[in-house]
């Protein structure tokens, strides 16, 4: 079966949009964070698609960089989320509202 390049790009754009919508709708901090990871992986799909259609390795190498960055973000993000959970036993973004104005 031959899948056209555009189908992959539309798939990537859809994944990105789902991640974006999820980030804005969901209130659980961990789910919001997962949505960001989804967006990063959507970009990876786009990079691989372009690299494949150009016959260029650079795009595939970039994906490795993005994966490392995503992993590092998990480390820092979960550390912050755990510190907050220890204090108030909740990971809802609505509870993080001490500051307003």
């Amino acid at each position, binding site marked *: 079966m031959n899948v056209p390049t555009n189908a992959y790009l539309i798939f990537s754009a859809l994944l990105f949009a789902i991640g974006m919508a999820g*980030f804005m709708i969901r209130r659980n901090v961990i789910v919001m964070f997962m949505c960001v990871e989804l*967006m990063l992986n959507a970009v990876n799909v786009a990079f691989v*698609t372009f690299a494949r259609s150009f016959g260029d390795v650079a795009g595939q190498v970039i994906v490795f960089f993005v994966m490392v960055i995503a992993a*590092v973000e998990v480390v*820092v993000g979960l550390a*912050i989320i755990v510190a*907050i959970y220890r204090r108030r036993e909740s990971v809802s973004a609505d509870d993080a509202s001490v500051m307003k104005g």
Partner: protein
Amino acid sequence: MIRIINTLQVASASLVAAATPSAEGVIRAPEIDYVAIAPEAILVLGALAILLKKGFVPRRYRMMASVATGILAICASLIATGILWQRLADGAAGTAVSGILAVDGFAVFSKVLFLGIAAFAILLGVPGLRRERIMREEYPALVVLAAAGMMLMAASSDLILTFLALELFSLAFYVLAAFARDLPRPQESALKYFLLGAFASAFFLYGVALAYGTAGSTNLTSIADFLGRGSIPWIFVASMALILVGLGFKVGAVPFHMWVPDVYQGAPSQVVGFLASGAKAAGVVALLRIYVSAFHAARPSWLPVIAGLSIATMAVGVVVALVQSDIKRLLGYSSIAHAGYLLIGVAAATPAATSASLFYLVSYAAMIFGAFAIVSVVSGKGDGFTRIDDFAGLARRRPMLAAAFTVFLLGLAGIPPTAGFIAKFVLFQAAVESGLWWLVLCGAVASVIAAYFYLRVIIVMFVREPEGEDLDSDEPDPITSLGMGLAIGITLVLGIIPQALMSVLAGADLVMPGL
């Protein structure tokens, strides 16, 4: 163990062989220009040394060793930057390391600026954090890592390197914002900064992917060539918009400014000065590098967007700052307004506007560092007293602090004889020369409104009687005083004899590839 490594080597070799298009199967390693990467490499090595020394240095010397290593790394990196500058003076501007690292006057000057910002972060941050008893050994490591990331933002000539640099300094800032991790406000500000920051970098990365898809490369020189060839596909316009979202978030431009007041209010004052000057400067230099040089041929498409962002940013920053009652939030909204002024420099897109923006960043960094140093002293333990009312009668309690704060606030307002006035003047002048008089008009109106809320704080300090409660604010320690003195010196010297820096900015060749 050895067998695993062998298997890995075979596997990676076959992977590379499969991926390399060349028929010979020989991989040519890129030529690495070690002098060009030395300033950042030294900083990263310094940070690693700080993190690894735990096993070697006795416990009681660890803190001192961290700070000393941090200072040493910054000094060594400054020397390396000086060598690079010398090489530039011999006329060797260009790109290094397979064209991903630009070596030009813009990059080298920005590196000096970021090293200065890092030096201030250690000078003012270490005593401040010690006072709060939240100083950790990792602080100098985070500062130098952030500095390395910001320096790469200025020098990067490839969008992927820009993304990595963006993440490098952002991750350091997320951790710094969470430094007082047991208090509710710093926790909340770190969470907001982190989540929104990660969200914004995903947009930046999607923009990079689309640029790669249309231009066939992430290299800025190749992209400039691609744009110079003629029509701009709509996907590339989308890519420019997405990259702008990512960088707009870092500089705190409206509508991506939601995190700024919360982070400025919640994070410890000692690190907010670093964050305010560093993150904003890094975002602005990347905007200049990407939009003004590489995307210059597409200026008709991005000019209305950036000009619109600039107007919205100035308007929201200035108007909302009028009603703030917390000094850190006020400075947060004022920094949003300053992001708006800086976007005028990006929109103008001329060499004169670029050097004016750099001048603005230098003076802004000195003023905002000084202002937050004073806030951290006056607000006392745990940033307890940050209402503007807490500054009432400061002129009577601590006359020197009140006088210093007045200098910084006048500088931020852009009133002569401070650097803030000259910075705004040269920036607006450059923008008028490139025909953006309507944008400058908006900037001038915003500056007039902004003067009101800065002067209000000064009046509260000098005229209002102190409130009954006695604040436990101490006299600043000698090192903090030295840092404040330096910041005042820069603010006044650049305001009175701006030629000192102007001549450096003109002498350093600020022409970027593509211009």
